[in-house]
């Protein structure tokens, strides 16, 4: 069965300023959608609304045609969200971090899978070091390992390229493309230029900071 996330007439106000109004978004299998806009235009806010973390908005959300409120758990079972914070416990090793995420997703993984996922983000050799002793980019790579480990069709990624080095960015782009080709879909924000993802759809948000003074 295929899936579809829809937003109808979405609007969000912050500090007497409308970040966006009358926004209609539709995202289905195989699509990569990029949300664009300058700093402060509301990208993070939009992603949080779409992934059901913020209730402070107007408009309606649908998952496979059903109102989000009714099918929230079904929706969550299909969602993988990566936010500004990597969600990695500093006192645990990368392996332990991933084990928890797998169990949380309702899966019973094994160690080999997790090792492979870590190898996929080039953390071989760091599997057993407490995450506190890794660099900014390595921390985020642990979070990115979840993309390979946990099978979810819809990815919502808020600036996934932050702190990742050039090679890492290229690999991640490939991963996103592959995901779309397998029928998954990706909703992301980033300030990077994404060269190889030529065919992606863009949702531009307001002019953000600049002209937004009341």
């Amino acid at each position, binding site marked *: *069965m*295929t*899936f579809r996330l829809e937003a109808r007439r979405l609007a969000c106000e912050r500090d007497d300023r409308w970040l966006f109004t009358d926004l209609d978004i539709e995202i289905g*299998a195989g699509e990569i959608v990029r949300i664009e806009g300058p700093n402060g235009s509301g990208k993070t806010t939009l992603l949080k609304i779409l*992934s*059901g*973390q*913020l*209730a*402070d908005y107007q408009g309606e959300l649908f998952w*496979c045609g059903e109102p989000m409120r009714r099918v929230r*758990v*079904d929706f*969550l*079972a*299909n*969602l993988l*969200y990566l*936010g*500004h*914070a*990597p*969600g*990695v*416990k*500093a*006192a*645990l090793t990368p392996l*332990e971090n991933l*084990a*928890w*995420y*797998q*169990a*949380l*997703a*309702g*899966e*019973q993984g094994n160690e080999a*899978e997790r090792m*492979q*996922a870590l190898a996929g983000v080039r953390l071989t050799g760091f599997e057993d070091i*407490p995450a506190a002793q890794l660099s900014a980019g390595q921390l985020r790579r642990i979070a990115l390992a979840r993309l*390979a*480990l946990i*099978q*979810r*069709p819809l990815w919502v990624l808020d600036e996934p390229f932050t702190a990742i080095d050039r090679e890492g960015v290229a690999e991640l782009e490939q991963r996103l493309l592959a*995901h779309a080709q*397998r*029928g*998954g879909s990706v909703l992301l924000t980033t300030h990077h230029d994404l060269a190889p993802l030529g065919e992606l759809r863009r949702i531009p948000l307001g002019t953000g900071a600049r002209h937004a003074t009341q």
Partner: protein
Amino acid sequence: MPRSDTLTIRESRGGLGGAVAATLRRDLILMLRRRSEIMNPLVFFALVITLFPLGISPEPALLTTIAPGLLWVAALLATLLSLDSLFRADYDDGSLEQLLLAPQPLPALVLAKVAVHWLMTGLPLALMSPLLGLMLGLPGGSYLILAISLALGSASLSLIGAIGAALTVGLSRGGVLLSLLVLPLYIPVLIFGAGAVQAAILGDGAAAHLAILGALLSLALMLAPWGIAAALRISING
């Protein structure tokens, strides 16, 4: 990794047991990895008890009179302080966000976290309390009741306190605010807990008090997880 060739929509199916067990395991590892952190509430407990003779008077008769209340208030404060970090660490590194996005019932996951907290704080406190009772000159027969009342009571304290911890998790200086929210709710537990010890000292049956503590605990067990889950959603939403 076993990978189907094309991705399809997934059912939200079980795995609850696994998720709860994994959360228990994770929090236990986190606690045990810093062995010293288990000691901390215990030492705080002992320290606060030490402050009172120093501040009040070292006279044994007076100390024995106030011992049950002293022990209970100190244990309560120790639990309270350790609660502050229950969700905060998870909030700061973003894993709380991920916990809320898991397709599992939040109250169950949260209950696992609270259980670890009690296991690592309340239970050791209860086990250590007879020693401090001894130092305050508590009469012989009351040690067991002291430990039982603290073990039962601190479980309620953890549950109730977790609601407060969840509500203040997003605020920068939650510590003191948490105390304000939670201390008034602790009063019934304190009254019956200290009452049980007092009754044991006087030789009355402490059973009634313990029964009420048990009732409070089961009430907290039924209601608190929902409260905690709701509070977390509110905090994250901000």
